[in-house]
């Protein structure tokens, strides 16, 4: 089977809630196997954009089109939420849950769980209750659980917010490895340093609109618009 290249096109997409426009109108095209970082201040619509891309946010106008059928595209995506959702089960069961949903045989699930628990550094904690993990461990578990199905596209919403340097580095290592082995990553962040370390291209979002979009590192050092420039220099943009 020839693997189809996955690409996504957003056309005049906007999201309105109670008469207020949260996002859009947005035109955006994402393809290839890069690492896209979505930057912007609080309330710019980063999370909403990510949810629109993932297909779990109702859009008011416009269209989101994948290069393959919607059902297939859904199966190939995973999403890591800003506040990781932990099932009230052990770490082992949390990691295996997405595979269990697919109805895979138990030995296969067990070996994959073992493999991924080592990769995310939770191998010694497999029988701990997941809701009792620390913030960093929860985030790593959520990342492992998202990657265990080998998604073609991975969405991450501020995966390193509130994490210390070491946890951030561990997560970044896992992300870079996933990206190298064929997972398209689309991630929001506040952290410009992280954007510089990881991104192959960046989107700058302000007040619900895409202000600027370009490949890194050129884009981060010399953005086209004044607002993006100010934001990248560390000024407060409203």
């Amino acid at each position: 089977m020839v693997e189809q290249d996955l690409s996504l096109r957003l056309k005049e997409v906007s999201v309105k809630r109670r008469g207020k426009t949260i996002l859009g109108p947005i035109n955006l095209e994402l393809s290839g196997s890069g690492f896209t970082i979505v930057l912007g201040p609080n309330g710019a619509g980063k999370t909403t954009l990510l949810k629109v891309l993932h297909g779990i946010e109702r859009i008011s106008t416009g269209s989101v089109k994948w290069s393959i059928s919607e059902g297939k595209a859904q199966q190939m995506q995973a999403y890591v939420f800003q506040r990781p959702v932990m099932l009230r089960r052990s770490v082992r069961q949390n990691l295996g849950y997405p595979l269990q949903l697919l109805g895979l045989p138990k030995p296969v699930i067990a070996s994959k769980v073992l493999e991924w628990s080592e990769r995310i550094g939770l191998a010694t904690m497999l029988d701990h209750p997941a809701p009792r993990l620390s913030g960093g461990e929860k985030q790593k578990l959520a990342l492992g659980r998202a990657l265990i199905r080998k998604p073609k596209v991975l969405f991450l919403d501020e995966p390193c917010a509130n994490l210390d340097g070491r946890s951030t580095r561990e997560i970044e290592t896992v992300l870079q490895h996933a990206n190298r082995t064929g997972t398209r990553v689309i991630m929001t962040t506040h952290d410009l340093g992280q954007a510089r370390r990881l991104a192959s291209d960046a989107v700058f979002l302000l007040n619900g609109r895409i202000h600027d979009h370009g490949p890194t590192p050129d884009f981060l050092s010399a953005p086209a618009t004044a607002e993006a420039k100010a934001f990248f220099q560390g000024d407060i943009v409203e």
Partner: protein
Amino acid sequence: MNDIWAGLLAAFRLIVTLDPDLVEITLRSLQVSLSALVIASCLALPFGTWLAIRRFRFRRATIATLNALMGLPPVVVGLIVYLLLSRSGPFGVLGLLFTPAAMIIAQVIIITPLIASITHQAMRELWSEYHDLLISLNTSNRQRIATLIWDGRRALLTGALAGFGRAIGEVGAIMIVGGNIDHATRVLTTAIALETGKGDFALALGLGFVLIALALLVNFTIHSLSRTERDRIW
């Protein structure tokens, strides 16, 4: 006060001597109420969970009705089941009236709304916690319900025990549809009503204490089996 002491004494004597009549009606009480509990749980747990995760047009009305049905008067349920099962009723041919089966049917009708309503309350909170993840993982409704029931089993246990409590202590409906026939449909509550009517307070009280002890025993057993309130509560 004398009556209560005499009751305690009677209860003690009945239990120690393993009075065959007492054993028989106690077992029948358990059989009827546990069967009703199992059937009602099979209906109410998935339904209550489904109500928590689905949005549809008459959802509010359904939930309000369900909550109202929690207070369904057992006597009225008994009367309706009686009319349905009586010889001239639509299900008369089944010959179920005045059998334990009729009592189970009546109790299922009484406790299903109660369990479903408690399930819905508990599942609503769990669903708001899991919502994003389960939607993102592209789960089917069936998988969502199964996940929620499994992870919320502790809360559901409370609902099931409340249902059991209502079933085992209920007298109005099973008196009507069961008929309190000796060696056939007599259970603890109907026996107590009968002995009280006859003026044998000691025996009535004795049966009453057995009933309370039974309810406690079942609760403790289920709790220890499911290991609630022990290590790893979440």
